């Protein structure tokens, strides 16, 4: 599995793998569904530190996670994004829905 996760202060922190395409996005969906259903997390933080490739499947995945956390009053944040990931987020207009931070500490400080 190319996605790692941890829970920090009711935030689900997902570290995305090197390539986020349709194939990988399907795996992330099943991981987050399982964890959100357990109800221990409110916010989602997506860590793109390892991600060198993303396509529109990644955008679809982020939009779906946004919908899930919004229903619970949570927010979705993106950290450590490379320039190519930032470009895709900008082109798709996603920067209006998600919060971008340089690192985990910045994201946590903003959320709490």
């Amino acid at each position: 599995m190319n996605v790692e996760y941890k829970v920090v202060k009711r935030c689900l922190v997902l570290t995305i793998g090197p390539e986020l395409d349709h194939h990988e996005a399907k795996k992330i969906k099943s991981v987050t569904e399982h964890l959100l259903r357990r109800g221990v997390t409110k916010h989602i933080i997506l860590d793109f530190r390892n991600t060198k490739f993303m396509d529109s499947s990644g955008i679809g995945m982020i939009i779906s996670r946004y919908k899930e956390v919004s229903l619970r009053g949570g927010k979705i944040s993106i950290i450590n994004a490379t320039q190519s990931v930032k470009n895709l987020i900008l082109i798709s207009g996603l920067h209006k829905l998600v919060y971008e931070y340089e690192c985990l500490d910045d994201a946590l400080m903003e959320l709490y």
Partner: protein
Amino acid sequence: MKKNEMDICFDSRSENESFARMVVAGFITYLDPTLEEMGDIKTAVSEAVTNCVIHGYNNGPGKIHMKCRIEDKTLQIEISDEGVGIENIRQAMEPLYTTKPDLERSGMGFAFMEAFMDGLHVESVPGKGTKVVMEKLLGVCINEEAI
């Protein structure tokens, strides 16, 4: 002016989305593209192949054809399937339009192909299949002696 062509056929599986973009990346490496050009091309290939897998064959079995052609500084990529085809191409190409929101599709596939490539042409016959032809002009000089 040197021509170079490549033609492959592979199964319609989500695992092969990364395979397809790696193949194209490998094929154009000798042209010494910039990281940005490489990223743009890989994203566009990924979008087109993903469309074949999800829409053309509806996640079922099928074959995807991919042809690449380099002529001068222009890279042409043709990706086709013999799947369900598209009824309304103009609507399918609209940003955010998707027939499969349940599969977490963003509806940005064609928009990304258009944004990252210099040319995009889509042909489709319902019930017969879809062909996407993309072009990109690479800003590098081909060193004939180095080939």
